């Protein structure tokens, strides 16, 4: 048996927590009943988190931007693999005991064939996408479907003067496609076959699946992306960034310079949820769906998303309108210790968030780390629970009953706006309009309210703000209206 001792700034057989970085601050905003706990990372481990996953026995696996995979068992950390190419996704195969990682150039299976606790075979599962060597060519993951296939996403390259950029550079775009399938989401079949799944992605840093097995990803604001988005991943869809179209069969053989906005604008699938830049998030990561069956509080099936820049976690509820998902996002927890790219629920029902700030900057002061958000199992938070679209306005449900006199029109404000689809970086909110509430209908139990509006306009983001006097932990919601209720 191989001894799995290792050297890291000295000789350490396995690392137990030493001094934890004395940085971080208490969340300024957090729903009642929730708390944030910092996971102590032993000194000497540069835990710039790129991926998180749990094994059946509760062991946590973490892959890091410098290419290591660490296993945390109880309070003890040991190295599982190293030498990987900036892995930004991880999946633990609980049945076989393997760990899959999404490296820049390939999807890899890490196999511990002699069961000594350390991977000894690094097996290539799929390496079918192009890599030119640009620093921005990130590969993200991982979602695994019940049939054993994987889903991941491929970032565009940054500022390379290739054909895909030339086409669009007149409009100011900066991201480009110097190699095949950049800007695509993909599926890898169980036999390793690569299948391009959807195009038009820019910087799709997070991916997750809901209870129904539907896959969602987030994309970061930038050229052609007016504000960050949460998107339902649909085969064949085009999400807006045209650089990826150079690999699209419908555009095969086209001269890049002949590609015009009118050729692709109508193909664009509208964002499932717009994530307002600055107000809520700047660079979202994984959507982690709460499939804990209530152990994380009353927000079952909703998504929790961490943000790199703002170091917060926000919440998204989804509903199907006209057969398609759309939904609403809310503040949840603010002021975590560092930028968040990964989020993952543990079997105990707590939400782990993996953090790194290097090179990107984050509001939280720590360079990297790991925290978890825990619900106390008893306290009912005082929050908006979800927002649903109605024919005549919005239904706002709360997690608890509010006093009848609070559910009056004066305590709610509604505004709407839209974002431009354009080659420039991002879009300020356009045509911001205050919407007068026609009437408020409170439910008898005080747990919900219908806000009646003069009209509901598709293609708009609606912001609903609740008066602080009602004592909610978070008081803002942003609903993206793509389709109207029949």
């Amino acid at each position, binding site marked *: 048996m191989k001894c799995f001792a*290792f*050297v890291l*700034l000295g000789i350490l057989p396995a690392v137990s927590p030493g001094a934890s970085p004395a940085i971080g601050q208490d969340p300024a905003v957090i729903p009642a009943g929730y708390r944030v706990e910092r996971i102590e990372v032993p000194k000497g481990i540069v835990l710039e988190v790129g991926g998180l996953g749990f094994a059946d026995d509760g062991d946590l696996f973490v892959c890091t931007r410098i290419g290591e995979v660490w296993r945390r068992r109880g309070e003890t950390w040991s190295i599982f693999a190293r030498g990987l190419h900036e892995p930004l996704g991880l999946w633990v195969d609980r049945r076989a005991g393997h760990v899959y990682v999404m490296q820049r150039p390939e999807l890899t299976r890490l196999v511990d064939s002699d069961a000594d606790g350390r991977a000894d075979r690094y097996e290539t599962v799929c390496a079918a996408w192009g890599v030119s060597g640009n620093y921005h060519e990130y590969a993200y993951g991982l979602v695994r479907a019940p049939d054993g296939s994987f889903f991941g996403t491929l970032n565009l390259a940054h500022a390379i003067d290739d054909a895909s950029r030339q086409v669009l550079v007149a409009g100011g775009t900066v991201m480009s496609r110097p190699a095949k399938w950049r800007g695509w989401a993909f599926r890898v079949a169980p036999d390793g076959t690569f299948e391009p799944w959807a195009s038009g992605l820019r910087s799709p840093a997070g991916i997750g699946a809901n209870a129904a097995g539907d896959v969602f990803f987030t994309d970061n604001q930038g050229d052609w992306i007016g504000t960050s988005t949460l998107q339902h991943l649909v085969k064949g869809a085009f999400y807006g960034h045209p650089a990826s179209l150079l690999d699209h069969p419908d555009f095969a053989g086209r001269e890049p310079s002949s590609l015009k906005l009118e050729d692709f604008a109508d193909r664009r699938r509208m964002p499932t949820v717009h994530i307002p830049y600055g107000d809520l998030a700047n660079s979202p990561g994984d959507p982690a769906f709460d499939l804990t069956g209530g152990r994380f509080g009353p927000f079952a099936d909703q998504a929790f998303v961490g943000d790199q820049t703002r170091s917060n976690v926000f919440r998204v509820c989804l509903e199907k309108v006209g057969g398609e998902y759309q939904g609403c996002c809310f503040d949840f927890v603010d002021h975590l210790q560092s930028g968040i790219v990964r989020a993952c629920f543990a079997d105990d029902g707590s939400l782990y968030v993996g953090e790194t700030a*290097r*090179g*990107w*900057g984050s509001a939280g002061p720590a360079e990297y780390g790991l925290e978890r958000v825990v619900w106390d199992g008893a306290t009912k938070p005082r929050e908006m629970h979800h927002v649903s679209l109605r024919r005549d306005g919005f239904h706002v449900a709360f997690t608890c009953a509010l006093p009848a006199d609070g559910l009056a029109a004066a305590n709610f404000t509604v505004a709407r706006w839209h974002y431009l689809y354009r080659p420039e970086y991002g879009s300020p909110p356009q045509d911001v309009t205050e919407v007068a509430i026609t009437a408020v209908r409170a439910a008898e139990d005080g747990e919900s309210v219908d806000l009646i509006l003069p009209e509901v306009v598709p293609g708009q983001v609606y912001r609903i703000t609740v008066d602080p006097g009602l004592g909610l932990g978070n008081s803002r919601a942003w609903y993206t209206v793509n389709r109207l209720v029949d």
Partner: protein
Amino acid sequence: MLVSLALVLAQAHVHHPAPSGAVPSPRPPAAAATTPVDREIALGVRRGLLRYDKEVLFVKCGDRVRVRLTNVDDMLHNFVLLAADGDIDAVSTAALGLGAEAMARQFVPALPQVFAHTPLAEPGHTVSVDFVAPQQPCDQPFLCTLPGHAATMRGLLRVSTSGGPLADLRFRCLDGEFDQLRDMVDAEVAKEGVVADGVIDLGVAARDNDFGLVFEGRLSVPRAGRQVFHLDSDDGARLSIDGVTVVDRDGTHPAGDEQTGEVELSAGEHDLCLEYFQRRGSMALRLAWTSATQPRIWLTRSGRGDKAARQELIVVDEPIVQRAFVEDGPPRAIAVGLPGGVSLCFDAEHCCVASAWRGGFLDVGPDRSGRGGKACRRVGTPFLSGDAFALRVAGEPADEFRAYRVEGRGVVFEFAAGERRVEERLEVDAQGSLACTFRVSGEPAPVELDLARAGLRVTGSAGTWDGDVLRLPTASSQRFTLTVGVER
């Protein structure tokens, strides 16, 4: 098996001796240590890399100086300081010419330009030399005169009026939420003071968020000419010399995008001003200075949130495998450092060796600083390039990469050529050569293998060469070894 790797943050001058205890503790310096000096400089060597751990040293005009050289290497070294106009190449060539006398003369030629030198430092030992620095500012080259070492073991002793890179360095710290440098104009000064050692240091602020710093001092330029400044910061910073902006990195942004600015300066002292602010999150401030006649001199200290740009992976007694973008390498590169001083870059797309070098392994700083993702630097001297060992079995190229594993002192790559599986094991053999052993499974078939042999000593265990193509008939193609001699 105990040790796989040690990570050396070379710029921070951190050494991790071999964990086996093979490196004895440095012997205390000889009697000279009892004589008081004004400045004592601890100089080291970077193990196995033929480099000093510091390549620019600072002393004050007229200082009594002691340089202590600690040799953690497994070969001999010395420290030979030359006069201001000394010629490193001439001195190292003269040292080579000492022939049989070399040992007796400590490898130091009797030349007027030799200003001072230590005795030979044996492995694990410390030696020292005392001297008095010249009264006038100047640059004095230094080198190791052991044969062949001076190509990389060289540096510069800068004699200046301040004894540091900057003279009379002062700082002002301002509190406030700044988004631009101009926001600092009306801010109140929270504290101010002198930076005694002349090195710009973010640490003087003793703050994490929402502050500004202004450093002012005098820069001593030894020779008139074009000076280049390299600035990187998180958040904004601006460098001015004699009141003129040289580099401007204003605004809130992460580090990792170094900007340079050039300015013609006369010999002598010039006013330097560096303005900086930090908003929230991570922070960094790096300023370096180069010219045609001097290596990179850091004017800032690396500190919190400011990782050393150079991070070298050091191979000890097990191979290290690191996937990353590698200098001159393919995008799907797998860098391998083998025990025995040979490293290589494997191309996982074309299943061949893209390059190999001798000496050190890999500087992963470009991949791990700032946003990262930049090509890692090879540490050492390349001896093999151009897709070596590209294989065809029965005419079919090896183009399907399958897996790799570390096995003993070697690394095994697994791939397929058509229907056949190939295993390629790379290791350094007992003669110090790079040995590459192939096993081809499946129905036996003839094998061809490309290797640009120019300048190489290559031997094959089987097959015949046809130019740069080795042809192995079916009978000998299932297991064969190629050995590439590595000049030391």
